[in-house]
C-alpha cells in the first residue's frame, strides 16, 4: 500500500469532566479511505475537530508527510491541504452557488474589490470539470440538502485538498446520492487524496473504506484493513466496555397498558411507528443519531404535528396537538435540549418548577404564593435540588440541578406518563445516579416511563423493554432478558431496510 500521509501521535484532549481523547495514535495512508468507527461520544468529532484546527490538543502531535505541524484554525488546515465536510451543514441560504465556493476567500483585484468575473469563470470551470449542472447564480436555499452536500465536497476538492474529512456525509442524502458520493470518493482516491470517513452506518463503511479504526471512550482500540474485519467484530469493539452494575434498577410490578401509539407517521421523519407502554414500566428507545426517536417523542408530546396515527391513553383515544393538551392528558416530556426546551434561564427556581402547574395555586384568579412556595419546596427536596434558595436563577445552576428542576416541574403536573429524552445528557455521574433513582421511584408509583437515550449501558441498565429505531422506523423490540449492546447495535445499524 501507499505511504503515510497523516500521522496522529499520542493526542489527548480533555474537557471539563471528560477525557475526550486519551493518547490517540493512528496513521492515514495516501490515497485510502480510512473509516473511524465508534459510538456516540466516543470522541470521533473531537478528534476530527483537532485535525481541522477547531480544537487544540492538550498534548501529542500531528504530522503531515512526516513533518510536525500545528494546526491553528480551519483556514490554516485548508492551507495545509485538509478540508472537512461537517455533519451538520452550516450553509448560508441566501448566497449563490458561485459565492459559496469563495466565501472567506474572495479573489480580489488590485483595488481590493471582489473580482466577480474571476469567481464566475472559476466556478464554471469547476462545475464543468466535475460534470455538474448547477447554475452559478442559483441560491443555496433553492437546492436540496444533498446538492449542498455535493457542493461542500466540490469545495473541498477545489482547495486541492489532500486530506478530506467527511463526518457522516450520508446522514441527509438518499441512496442514489450516496452512490454518486461514493463514485466521487473513489475518484478522489485514485488521485491520491486521503479520506477520513466517519459514519454510523456500518454497511456503508464496509462498502467504501480500506482501513477501519475503532475508537471507544476516547481511546483507539485497533486499526485493521477492512478485509480483516467483520461487522460483528466492529460492533463488539465499538461497544466493548465492561458493563458496570451502577444502575439502581428494581423489579416493579408491571400493570396494564397506559399508552398505546398506533401507525404513527410523519412524512420525512418517521413511519408506521407502533409501540405501547405499561404502568410501572420503563421502556427504552435506542437508535443512532437521526433514527427518528426524538421526532417521534416530539410529535407524541404535541410539539410537532404528525400526519397519521392514533394515541391511546388509558384506553381512550386522545387528540394531542400541543404540549398543553398532552399535559392535560397526564403525559409530559423532558426534552433532550434542556437549554432550548427546558429551562427559563432568567427566572428563578420557584417560577420554573411551578410553571406547568400554576392552575393548582389559583383561587378566584389569584395566585397563592405561600402554597406555591410550600409545594415547590416539597418537590425540590424530593428531587434533591441543590441551590441556596428558591429565588436562585436557574441559569446559575449546574446542568444536573437544572435537570432536577425540570423533573420537579414535570412531576408537579402529576403525570401518568413521563417521556424522558436523553435525561442524563451532559450531567455528572453523581447526578445521573440520582436521576436513575428517581426513575425507579416513579415506576414504583405506577407511572409509565419512556427513556430515549444514546447511551446503551444506561438503557440496558434501566429499561424493562427496549425498542430500537433506525431510519424513522421501529426495527426491533427486546425484552429485559435479551438485552445486549451487540444486539441493539445490530438492529440500529440494520442493513438497508427499505
Amino acid at each position, binding site marked *: 500500500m501507499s505511504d503515510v500521509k497523516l500521522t496522529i501521535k499520542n493526542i489527548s484532549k480533555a474537557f471539563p469532566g471528560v477525557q475526550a481523547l486519551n493518547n490517540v495514535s493512528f496513521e492515514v495512508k495516501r490515497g485510502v479511505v480510512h473509516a473511524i468507527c465508534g459510538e456516540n461520544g466516543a470522541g470521533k468529532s473531537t478528534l476530527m475537530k483537532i485535525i481541522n484546527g477547531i480544537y487544540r490538543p492538550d498534548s501529542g502531535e500531528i504530522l503531515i508527510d512526516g513533518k510536525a505541524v500545528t494546526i491553528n484554525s480551519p483556514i490554516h488546515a485548508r492551507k495545509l491541504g485538509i478540508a472537512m465536510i461537517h455533519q451538520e451543514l452550516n450553509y448560508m441560504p441566501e448566497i449563490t452557488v458561485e459565492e459559496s465556493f469563495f466565501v472567506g476567500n474572495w479573489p480580489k483585484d488590485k483595488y481590493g474589490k471582489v473580482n466577480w468575473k474571476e469567481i464566475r469563470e472559476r466556478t464554471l470551470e469547476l462545475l464543468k470539470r466535475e460534470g455538474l449542472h448547477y447554475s452559478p447564480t442559483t441560491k443555496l436555499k433553492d437546492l436540496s440538502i444533498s446538492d449542498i452536500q455535493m457542493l461542500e465536497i466540490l469545495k473541498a476538492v477545489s482547495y486541492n485538498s489532500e486530506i478530506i474529512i467527511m463526518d457522516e456525509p450520508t446522514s441527509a442524502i438518499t441512496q442514489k446520492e450516496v452512490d454518486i458520493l461514493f463514485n466521487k470518493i473513489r475518484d478522489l482516491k485514485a488521485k491520491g487524496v486521503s479520506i477520513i470517513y466517519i459514519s454510523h452506518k456500518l454497511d456503508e463503511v464496509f462498502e467504501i473504506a480500506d482501513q477501519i479504526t475503532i475508537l471507544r471512550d476516547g481511546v483507539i482500540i485497533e486499526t485493521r484493513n477492512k478485509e480483516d474485519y467483520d461487522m460483528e467484530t466492529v460492533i463488539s469493539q465499538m461497544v466493548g466496555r465492561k458493563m458496570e452494575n451502577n444502575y439502581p434498577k428494581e423489579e416493579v410490578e408491571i400493570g396494564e397498558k397506559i399508552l398505546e401509539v398506533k401507525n404513527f407517521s410523519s412524512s420525512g421523519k418517521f413511519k408506521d411507528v407502533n409501540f405501547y407502554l405499561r404502568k410501572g414500566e420503563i421502556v427504552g428507545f435506542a437508535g443512532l443519531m437521526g433514527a427518528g426517536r426524538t421526532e417521534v417523542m416530539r410529535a407524541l*408530546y404535541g*410539539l410537532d404535528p404528525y400526519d397519521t396515527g392514533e394515541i391511546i391513553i388509558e384506553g381512550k383515544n386522545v387528540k394531542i396537538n*400541543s*404540549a*398543553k393538551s*398532552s*399535559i*392535560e392528558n397526564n403525559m*409530559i*416530556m423532558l*426534552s433532550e435540549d434542556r437549554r*432550548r*426546551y*427546558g*429551562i*427559563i*434561564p*432568567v*427566572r428563578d427556581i420557584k*417560577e420554573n418548577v*411551578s*410553571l*406547568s402547574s*400554576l*392552575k393548582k395555586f*389559583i383561587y378566584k*384568579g*389569584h*395566585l397563592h*404564593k405561600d402554597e406555591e412556595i410550600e409545594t415547590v419546596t416539597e418537590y425540590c427536596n424530593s428531587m434533591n435540588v441543590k441551590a441556596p434558595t428558591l429565588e436562585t436563577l436557574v*441559569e*446559575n445552576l*449546574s446542568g444536573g440541578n437544572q435537570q432536577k428542576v425540570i423533573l420537579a*416541574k414535570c412531576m408537579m*403536573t402529576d403525570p401518568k406518563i413521563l417521556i424522558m429524552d436523553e435525561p442524563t445528557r451532559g450531567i455528572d455521574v453523581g447526578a445521573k445516579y440520582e436521576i436513575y433513582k428517581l426513575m425507579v421511584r416513579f415506576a414504583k408509583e405506577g407511572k409509565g416511563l419512556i427513556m430515549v437515550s444514546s447511551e446503551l449501558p444506561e438503557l440496558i441498565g434501566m429499561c424493562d423493554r427496549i425498542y430500537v429505531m433506525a431510519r424513522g422506523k421501529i426495527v426491533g423490540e427486546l425484552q429485559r432478558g435479551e438485552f445486549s449492546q451487540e444486539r441493539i447495535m445490530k438492529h440500529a445499524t440494520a442493513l438497508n431496510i427499505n
Partner: protein
Amino acid sequence: MKKVSENRSIFNLLSKYSIYFVLIVLFIISWMANENFITPQNLKNVANQISVSTILAFGQTILVIAGMLDLSSGSVLALAGVLSVSTYVSTGSLSLSFVVAIVVAVICNIISGLMITKFKTPPFIATLSMMTMARGAALLYTKGQNIYQIGDYIVFGQGSTLGIPNPIILLIISLVATSYILRHTVFGRSVYAIGGNEEAANASGIDVNKVKMKAYIINGIFVGIAGVIFMSRVNGGMPNGAQNYEFKALTATVIGGTSFTGGVGNAIGTVAGAFIVGFLDNIMVMVGVHSYLQQIVRGAIIALSVIYDIWAKSRKKGKVQKAQ
C-alpha cells in the same frame, strides 16, 4: 472571606435597586440645582406630565417582558382619542366616550396581535404597520382638523378627585393593576416565561399565542386610557397628537430595568424610569439647558442605563461562575 461576601451583598443590593438610587440621587441634585424643583406644585406638574407616557409604558412593560413591543401606541392613542372626543361632542356622555377610547385601542391591538400570532409577523413590523395605519385613520376621520370645544371632556386630564389630579389617579390604578397582573396571575407568570424562553414555555404547556393576544389586549386598554387623558389635557381631539409617545414609553420601560431580551422587568421599575426622565426634563428646563441639548441628554441616558444593566449582569454572572 467574610468581607468578600459582604462586599458582594452590598453590590447585589446596589445593582438590584440601582434604578431607585439613581432616582433619589437625581432628585437631590435637582433640588440643589433649583429650589423651585421641590415645590408641591412642580412635583405635581411632573407627575401630570409623565402620566400619559407612563400609562403607555405599563403596556410596553408587559409586552417587552414577553419579548415583544408596541410601536403603534402613540398613533393608536391619537385614533382612540379623537374618536372618543368626537363621541363626547356628539353624545355628551363622558362614560361612553371613555369606553369608545378603550374599545378602539383594543381593536387596533387585537389586529396587531393577530398579525403576530396567526401570521407570525415580527412584533416590530406588525406594530410599525399599525402605527402608520392608525395615524392615517385618525387624520382621515378628522380630515386633518383638530376637534375643539370639548367641554367637560377636560375632566379626565385636568380635573381632580379628592384633591388628587385625575391623571395621577389613573396612573396609580394602572400601576397597581400591572403589578398585580404580573405578580399574581397565571398570565403574568406566563409573560415572564415566554420572554425568558418561548420554546420552553410552549413545551411547559403554556398557550403562547393566547398569552400574546392577552398582552396586546391589555396594552390596548392602557393606550385607550392614555388617549382620553392626552386629549383632555390638550383641550381637543388632536389627530396629530402624541407623536413619538411610543418611544417615550419604551424609554421609561428600558430605563426602569425591563430587559429587551425578555423575561425580566416590573411595573414599579417602569414608574421609576418614567420619573427619572420626567425629573431630568423638568430640571433641564428650569436651569435653562438648550432644548436640543436636552434631547442629546435624554438619548444618552437610555444608552447608559442599558450599558449599565448589561455590565452589572455580566459581572454578576462572572462572580457566580468563579464561586462555583
